[in-house]
């Protein structure tokens, strides 16, 4: 419990890391640190794997510290990395509150690379991640194409006001008006929750005799909408999700969901290690902002 405990644990990990460096003896040259928000979620596990693998491939030693979704642990972790004098700090932040400690790193002459979550107010050399506005736009374009530009679409938003949901809404809202054949018959919030989306979709089906596609801002809601459509015995409705969770991918393979958007956490991690390398060797200029492409998983 408490920061003390975590700090002791942090020092213990640090100790082991130093020992490993000493034992291997070869990687003392280039050393980077990666502070990751959590390792419970497979998304961030893949991101850490990407950093680790690419750092190794580029001949660097990467110290990876897990903040366990706690800002105070992450701040302590980054302070430890500064003390360790790593050459670049790569961070997938838990919270905007990490800005102060990241500026401390920059003051100490350590460039910072943020992954997936931007940190406003922090002096950052490079940000790498997907852009939810782009995801919303490209997902909506996929739906328009799948309907050949004509049909009734239901949009299922996430938690009202959540940045990811509002950005995906913004991106998709750019697309619909360009296609006069597409009619948005309902745009409602399923709160990113399967059970909520089930009820919301049931209600929409009561009001809408003709629905051709359901565009959901995450997979959980797509699975809920699918349950509602199945229970109502309606057919020919293309339901799409985002995130490429395991059961959504299975459902796409079964031909139930039409599509889910896959984000590339592993590639984001790899790109983070690459930019860290460039920042050290100065072999290439590092772009301040890199938007990683997403892919569409279909049958």
């Amino acid at each position, binding site marked *: 419990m408490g920061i003390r405990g975590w700090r002791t644990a942090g020092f213990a990990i640090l100790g082991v890391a130093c020992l490993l460096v000493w034992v291997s003896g070869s990687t003392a040259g280039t050393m980077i640190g990666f502070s990751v928000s959590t390792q419970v979620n497979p998304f961030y596990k893949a991101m850490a794997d990407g950093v680790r693998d690419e750092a190794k491939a580029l001949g660097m030693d990467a110290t990876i510290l897990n903040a366990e979704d706690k800002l105070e642990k992450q701040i302590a972790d980054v302070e430890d990395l500064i003390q360790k004098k790593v050459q670049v700090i790569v961070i997938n932040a838990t919270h905007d509150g990490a800005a102060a400690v990241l500026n401390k790193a920059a003051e100490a002459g350590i460039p910072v690379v943020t992954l997936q979550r931007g940190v406003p107010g922090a002096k950052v050399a490079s940000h790498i991640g997907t852009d939810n506005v782009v995801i919303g736009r490209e997902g909506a374009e996929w739906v328009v194409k799948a309907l050949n530009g004509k049909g009734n679409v239901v949009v299922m938003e996430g938690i009202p006001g959540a940045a990811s949901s509002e950005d995906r809404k913004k991106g998709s809202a750019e697309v619909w008006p360009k296609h006069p054949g597409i009619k948005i018959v309902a745009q*409602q919030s399923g709160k990113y929750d399967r*059970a909520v989306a089930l009820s919301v979709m049931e209600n929409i089906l*009561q009001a809408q005799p003709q629905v051709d596609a359901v565009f959901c801002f995450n997979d959980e809601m797509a699975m*809920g909408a699918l*349950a509602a459509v199945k229970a109502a015995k309606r057919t020919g409705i293309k339901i799409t999700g985002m995130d490429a969770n395991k059961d959504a991918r299975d459902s796409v393979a079964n031909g139930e969901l039409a599509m889910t958007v896959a984000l590339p956490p592993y590639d984001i991690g790899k790109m983070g290690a690459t930019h860290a390398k460039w920042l050290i060797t100065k072999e290439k200029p590092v772009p301040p902002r890199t938007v990683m492409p997403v892919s569409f998983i279909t049958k």
Partner: protein
Amino acid sequence: MLIRLLRSYGSLLGLLLIGTVLSLLSDRFLTTSNIINIARQVSINAIVAAGMTVVIITGGIDLSVGSTIALAGCSALLVARGTGDLVGMAAGLGAGALVGLLNGGLVAWGRVPPFITTLATMTIVRGGALVLTNGEPIVQSTGPYLWLGQASFGPIPIPILLMAAVLFGTHWFLARTRWGTYVYAVGGNAEAARLAGISLAGIQILVYVLAGALSGLAGLVLAARLSSAQPNTGVGFELDAIAAVVLGGTSLMGGEGTIWGTMVGAFIIGILNNGFNLMNVSPFYQLIAKGAVIVLAVLVDQLVKAGMASGRAGSPATTTVGGPPTA
């Protein structure tokens, strides 16, 4: 006379009023298929809210019901994998009852206030569901358990029949049994009830176990409806259940309340959500409208109570005012 009538049927009048407005605004509202749809959606909240009513009548509260829904669904499907659906269902109900036993034990024997107890078990139980499932949904798209959520008896879906059975059963328990009378007595004046020889601990444990088991049942119905169990489902469900109880005229101070009121409260929330979706109201405005209806209903309830009190004692200032829910 009018005030007494309003007191007894105020929430029902509210339901009819909202229903009338919605049927004027949307021609899809008052159809048989939509009414069945609403009742099926309401069933999960109503089952949870029935248990919540009994707890609140004792002067308690149960914030852990949403997490219990998740835990029950997940443990049911996990156990069902190895031993079949029937044992799985029993495990789900058992998990709910166990959470209730933990809540009741802490409140009755540990003397931890119900709000603190169930706030703590809310996160403990959520954590338990995440640990059990490693954070992943458990999908099971075949098996007899689906009957609970997806089958119908004639035109009536099973969740509606389960809701009716739970509401009748809880009403019978409160209104027709000795234990029910004790529940009101404990909520009305715990010390007097204790002096009258009622086992305070026994009643408290009983009501939390009942609430836990009913949340477990709701978790099974939800899992059956979705053909899967999610460890992160049911977040915020406690607020909908508390809102239904309060809309139904049950006092958060304990000692009074009815199951029928709660049922009406659950239907008010259900038709609001349904109406918003039918009319495609912006999600931002939905949040405002939902909160406003709850405050308005409780406000009217307080005014009516104040009216009754002044009718009796001529002094509305002495009326006890129960707080509206934090939803």
